[in-house]
């Protein structure tokens, strides 16, 4: 900007001509100049004030945001082991009532820093005295080895052992905090829980990793830092599980069985209330996997989930259900049961001759192989495959156990018409007891598909309708009649009407063919039979009742009594009031009449 002179000559001369005082011009110009200066100064000051105000605003916003953030974050509790990258945190596993199945227990590991040791030889000697399995000379050699500076001695110490080691007074022996996975109930539910081991080890903490079962399946969820405080609720009921284990163990011992399994499932929610496989193990000291022999005989093997067996006649229920559901037969349709039924070189026989013909109901009640084969013969390969697939028999079982996905059912290579017939009575296709339980649940719950689950559920599963409600009702009645009139008479227990189907399958031999004296006995039962709430599958591997003149191996003599005893014991534990048999029969009659009325 050009500075205006105070007395511009032109204006002064002009003023002089007109006789005005030129001093006014100077004063006016001075005024203008001062006004300009004032405006500039005010602008500057305003700018500075604005900048300052903005700075303060920024500061306050920053502070406010920080305070808001602090107020909004959840308070964090300090806990041992969380400070390091390696976290030993692992959520608890509880049963459906909140009883502890697996939890963490703080303990200590023992390690040595050899450079800080005062008297390594004495320390080794003293350690050997506390831990009998430590060899004093070898430990001393390790302590005095100049190459080593750090030695793990024990992964876990009991408080007594820790005190004893502390009393040695050796400054080079140090304790590192550890968490230890504890299964307070010992062997109960061992196969469901699996077990845990140490992963990465640090001085301050060690990772706990799941090895098998739910511990492995839910490993990331259990170790998720955000969910560590939230225990995992399983669907198991500890009391029921303990009772089933006790009874099944007694039955297995009495019948000299090689193994046994039991699955108890809610037919509406698919919750597995109890899952037992015997022989079992203690997850606190999980045995190493077997290196020789049959893996299926190891205690680690979960017979109820991993064990796929040809289960025999228990599968007849599905053949009959398909016959009824497709409308091909009714419970009163007469089926030709003259034997043997020959198909090419293959002959199908019955356990004994049931006469020339039986009604569909009696085919179930008497368990006629020829009868079910005839029913399925008319239905054919594809319909059978579809039907079994809907029930989930053709795919690996869906359950929250790490092992489940590793085994799958054995199906015929070529699904021929003969396969259709043998599968109708449970041969030629293998099924796990768990899948069978889910299948029976769908059969009797009104026909809805059930996916077994080990997590506690609050709602009924809304599965697809796979058979009609009417077929389901007919199946309930037939299962009831099998117990009341047929092969499962030992399942008649006071107070609880049970429906079920037996299955006695000759086990396949190691070199093909079937073994004569090795029977896998299964009893699939539902109770109460007129309005089923639970399905119970009991299998006994090579059990035999030897109280008679000759050993009796069929399920009616082995699996059924054991299953009946289990039902007798657990039904009251499941809050089930006793129901009189007449009441159950009346309910069946009422259902029959209402369906006839439609």
């Amino acid at each position: 900007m050009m500075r205006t002179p105070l007395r511009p000559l032109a204006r002064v001369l002009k003023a002089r001509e007109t006789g005005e005082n030129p001093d006014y011009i100077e004063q006016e110009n001075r005024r203008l100049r001062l006004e300009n200066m004032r405006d500039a100064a005010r602008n500057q000051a305003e700018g500075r004030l604005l900048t300052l105000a903005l700075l303060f605003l920024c500061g306050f916003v920053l502070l406010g945001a920080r305070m808001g953030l602090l107020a909004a974050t959840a308070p964090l509790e300090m806990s041992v082991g969380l400070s390091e990258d390696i976290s030993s945190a692992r959520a608890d596993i509880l049963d459906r009532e909140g009883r502890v199945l697996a939890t963490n227990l703080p303990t200590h590991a023992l390690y040595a820093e050899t450079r800080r040791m005062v008297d390594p030889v004495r320390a080794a000697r003293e350690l050997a005295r506390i831990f009998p399995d430590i060899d004093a000379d070898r430990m001393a050699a390790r302590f005095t080895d100049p190459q080593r500076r750090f030695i793990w001695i024990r992964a876990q110490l009991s408080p007594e052992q820790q005190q004893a080691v502390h009393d040695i007074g050796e400054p080079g022996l140090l304790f590192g905090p550890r968490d230890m996975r504890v299964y307070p109930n010992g062997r109960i539910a061992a196969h469901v829980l699996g077990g845990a081991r140490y992963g990465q080890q640090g001085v301050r903490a060690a990772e706990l990793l799941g090895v098998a079962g739910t511990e492995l399946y839910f490993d990331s969820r259990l170790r998720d830092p955000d969910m560590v405080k939230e225990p995992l609720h399983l669907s198991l009921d500890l009391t029921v599980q303990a009772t089933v284990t006790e009874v099944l163990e007694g039955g297995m011992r009495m019948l000299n069985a090689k193994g046994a399994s039991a699955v108890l499932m809610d037919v509406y929610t698919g919750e597995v209330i109890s899952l037992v496989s015997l022989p079992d193990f203690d997850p606190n000291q999980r045995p190493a996997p077997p290196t020789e022999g049959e893996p299926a005989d190891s205690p680690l093997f979960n017979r109820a989930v991993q064990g796929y067996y040809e289960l025999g006649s228990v599968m007849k229920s599905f053949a009959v259900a398909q016959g009824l559901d497709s409308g091909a037969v009714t419970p009163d349709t007469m089926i030709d049961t003259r034997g043997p039924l020959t198909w090419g070189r293959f002959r199908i026989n019955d356990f004994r001759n049931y006469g020339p013909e039986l009604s569909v109901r009696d085919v179930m009640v008497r368990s006629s192989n020829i009868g079910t084969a005839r029913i399925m013969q008319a239905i054919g390969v594809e319909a059978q495959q579809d039907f079994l697939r809907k029930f989930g028999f053709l795919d690996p079982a869906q359950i929250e156990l790490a092992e489940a996905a590793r085994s799958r059912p054995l199906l015929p290579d070529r699904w021929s018409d003969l396969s259709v017939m043998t599968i109708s009575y449970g041969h030629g296709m293998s099924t796990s007891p768990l899948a069978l339980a889910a299948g029976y649940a769908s059969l009797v719950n009104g026909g809805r598909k059930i996916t077994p689950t080990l997590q506690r559920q609050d709602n009924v599963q809304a599965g697809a309708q796979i058979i009609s409600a009417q077929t389901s009702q007919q199946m309930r009645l037939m299962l009831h009649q099998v117990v009341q009139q047929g092969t499962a008479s030992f399942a008649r227990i006071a107070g609880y009407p049970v429906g079920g189907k037996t299955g006695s399958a000759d086990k396949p031999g190691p070199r093909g063919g079937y073994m004569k004296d090795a029977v896998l006995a299964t009893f699939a039962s539902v109770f109460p039979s007129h309005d089923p709430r639970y399905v119970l599958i009991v299998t006994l591997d090579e059990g035999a009742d030897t109280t008679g003149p000759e050993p009796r191996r069929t399920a009616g003599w082995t699996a059924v009594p054991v299953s009946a005893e289990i039902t007798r014991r657990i039904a009251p534990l499941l809050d089930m009031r006793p129901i009189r048999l007449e009441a159950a029969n009346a309910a069946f009659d009422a259902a029959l009449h209402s369906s006839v009325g439609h």
Partner: protein
Amino acid sequence: MRSFLYFLTALAVIGLAAWAYRENHLTQQAMNERRALEREVASLSNAITIQRTEWAYLNRPDRLRELVDVNFARLRLVPMTADHFGEIGQVAYPLPVLRSDYSTAVEVFGDLQSTPPARQEDTP
């Protein structure tokens, strides 16, 4: 006037500094307390974990069953079965309260020996 203002400002700065100093120490003290509390919470939650585990261990079904077996003579606990459920009709009406003019426990004990017939008359 101006020097007085300067004096006041200086006083305010000193006062604020003293306040900030105090506040700083209070904060540190609070943080120390927090750490101590957190340690206590951690050790208490550890103790709870241990006691919960011990409780679960002491209540494990195997041990309870052994205890039931050992104490069978005294407690006569048997597995629950359908027989243990009762009908509502099986529950007896409460007996009418026995009216008595007895004053001491000894007297009651001594007299009850001879009262059964009288008591039966009272019940409907």
